[in-house]
């Protein structure tokens, strides 16, 4: 079936280092969303990207959507302990009613 692949599965960083997670789809997406899930919590929406080549920023977080609308990335600058959690991308395939989630990247921060 259609898949949205996300790497890496785990990322250990020292506090203050940068972090990036990547999302790739085998087919073109109509849009892509990013969610964050804190340990023991539920996924919370961060942002949506719709346009080819779109870049959006939220404070230390930068989100990109590829030109072909098949890949996306989330970059966090100077990580803080509050960034700990799992980051999921979720793509909407063209014509589909639902989102296909990546398996997530677990961000572990060492103080």
């Amino acid at each position, binding site marked *: *079936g259609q898949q949205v692949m*996300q790497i890496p*599965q785990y990322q250990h960083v020292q506090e203050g280092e940068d972090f990036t997670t990547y999302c790739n789809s085998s087919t073109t997406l109509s*849009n892509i*969303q990013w969610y964050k899930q804190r340990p023991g919590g*539920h*996924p*919370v*929406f961060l942002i*949506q990207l*719709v346009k080819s080549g779109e870049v959006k920023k939220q404070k230390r977080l930068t989100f990109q959507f590829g030109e072909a609308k098949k890949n996306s990335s989330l970059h966090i600058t100077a990580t803080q302990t509050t960034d700990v959690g799992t980051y*999921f991308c*979720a793509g*909407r395939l063209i*014509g*589909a*009613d*639902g*989102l*296909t*989630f*990546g*398996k*997530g990247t677990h961000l572990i921060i060492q103080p």
Partner: protein
Amino acid sequence: DAGITQSPRHKVTETGTPVTLRCHQTENHRYMYWYRQDPGHGLRLIHYSYGVKDTDKGEVSDGYSVSRSKTEDFLLTLESATSSQTSVYFCAISESAGGGYNEQFFGPGTRLTVL
């Protein structure tokens, strides 16, 4: 947080017993979803609903059924629970899907253990 509640929050049951999980929303959103979350698999869609009495299958629908008789309630039923259905179940809602671009709001989750 959006007005979404799930009940029960935790359940332990035995293989072969029926189980029903409830999702209740106060947002009047049209779309409701059931996901399961397992280590190494992320979030996988079980079933979703695009209106009262309108439901469709997701990626991992085998062994599950759903019903939506009111806008605010979406029920997930395991007719005969198996150990492979031990998981954390999340309900989500959104105003639209398909041609719309609305985010999904997730409930707090139900942790189900099937012994």
